[in-house]
């Protein structure tokens, strides 16, 4: 992002502000599906000097996901209006001539984040508050009516059988597109299993699509904001729970590094008032491992085919043995 162009853009978006300045614009790591920039916005309004920390998210030239920035912005906006813990979205720009590629600007929430499982070094009191918020926010998300949130744009499944079928077909198609003619017998078998064992949802909810440890900002008081809404869609409530509780994000009995897995499930049942359907949960944990493996293949392909120069992408290969091993265990292939 260019500082001068960004400043001019924000001046147009904030005509009431004078002396507007973009300070300390820098690209930051994280949010691999978009280029992410941090900066401070300074301006004078009603005679008062204002400062606000900001994030700019711009479409990448390549990367992990092919997602729609308008969709992501609309979802964050709807979640913000519904009172969920998300950064406040401010401006969406789809005109690529403004900053070479579409982008959006949102408030930069405070707090820290991690790569994956909740850091084991954090105090237990923080871990338990984050765990409680993590499940609590998921329960709130799943209690929302997507129509009231104006999120029909996400495409409502026609019936309760559709969510499993649609997600399986979606990720299987990307697998076929991005495997670069390589063969992954376990992944091929996993998609065959998913097609042969579809589950039926009990309702249609807003699905975050990447609800896991590592995708939130937190401090000692709990979660401040849930991040990375670019894979949001409508589907089965078990999908986010299955993804969040995958062994991959925790690698031990602590789901996401947050809470012992069975306690995690009990807390979910308590907060949602809905019993967990273990068959559906298992289906979405299998789908989750397959989906994550496919996301790795997409990143690798974009690196190999020079759509991205992000040096993290080739390391995605290192995640495959774990994901394929988890799938093999789930499907009793070893």
């Amino acid at each position: 992002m260019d500082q001068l162009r960004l400043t001019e853009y924000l001046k147009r978006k904030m005509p009431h502000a004078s002396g507007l300045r973009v300070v300390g614009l820098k690209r930051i790591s994280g949010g691999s599906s978009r280029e992410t920039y941090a900066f401070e916005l300074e301006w004078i309004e009603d005679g008062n000097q204002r400062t606000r920390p900001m994030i700019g998210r711009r479409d990448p030239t390549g990367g992990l996901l092919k997602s729609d920035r308008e969709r992501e912005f609309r979802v964050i906006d709807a979640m913000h209006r519904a009172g969920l813990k998300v950064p406040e979205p401010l401006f969406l720009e789809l005109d690529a001539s403004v900053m070479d590629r579409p982008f959006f600007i949102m408030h930069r929430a405070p707090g820290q984040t991690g790569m994956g499982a909740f850091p084991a070094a954090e105090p237990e009191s923080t871990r338990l508050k984050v765990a409680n918020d993590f499940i609590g926010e998921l329960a709130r998300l799943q209690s929302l009516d997507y129509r009231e949130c104006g999120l029909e744009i996400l495409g409502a499944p026609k019936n309760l059988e559709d969510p499993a079928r649609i997600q399986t077909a979606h990720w299987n198609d990307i697998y076929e597109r991005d495997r670069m003619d390589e063969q992954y017998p376990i992944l091929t078998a996993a998609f065959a299993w998913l097609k042969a064992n579809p589950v039926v949802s009990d309702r249609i909810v807003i699905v975050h699509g990447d609800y896991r440890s590592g995708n939130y900002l937190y401090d000692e008081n709990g979660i401040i904001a849930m991040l990375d809404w670019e894979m949001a869609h409508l589907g089965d409530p078990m999908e986010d729970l299955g993804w969040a509780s995958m062994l991959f994000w925790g690698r031990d009995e602590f789901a996401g590094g947050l809470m012992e897995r069975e306690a995690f499930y009990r807390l979910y049942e308590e907060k949602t008032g809905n019993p967990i359907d273990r068959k559906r949960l298992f289906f979405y944990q299998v789908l989750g491992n397959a989906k994550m493996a496919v996301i790795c293949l997409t990143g690798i392909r974009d690196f190999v085919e020079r759509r991205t120069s992000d040096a993290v992408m080739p390391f995605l290969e290192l995640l495959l043995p774990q994901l394929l091993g988890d799938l093999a265990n789930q499907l009793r292939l070893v």
Partner: protein
Amino acid sequence: MLRPTLNELISGMQRTIIEALMPELTSPYAQNQAMSAIGMLAHAAAILESAPAYDAAEIKDLRTTFAAIKRLGDKHLSKKSGLRGALARATRASTKAPPDRRAMEAAMAEFTTAVALGQADDRVARHVRGYLGRHLERSRVLLGGASPSA
């Protein structure tokens, strides 16, 4: 021997990044990318050394596994499952010079699918599971068992 060797070259490039580039980089993003590039070079060195043995072991194991399944005889491969055709393709691929690894892996994907769907005979499934277990172990040795929490 040509000097620098490949390993010496890679190690030198890592030093260049650490000693010459890193001190000049002010952006945290650029610093992270430089660190990843150092890791990428280390990974490349390890792969260059280990990949030939990994590939050879994979081809040998696929060939041995399909040969073992073939010895079981057609009665263990139901016509309906399509595995007889997959085995014939795998056998042809394994006798090519050099062996057609992708074709063998494609056939293995069919066998793995049959096992996942409970459509494979127990004795066939045992051979497939044996191969998959060894394949995963070789992958872990080559690439490590990384996860986001690692």
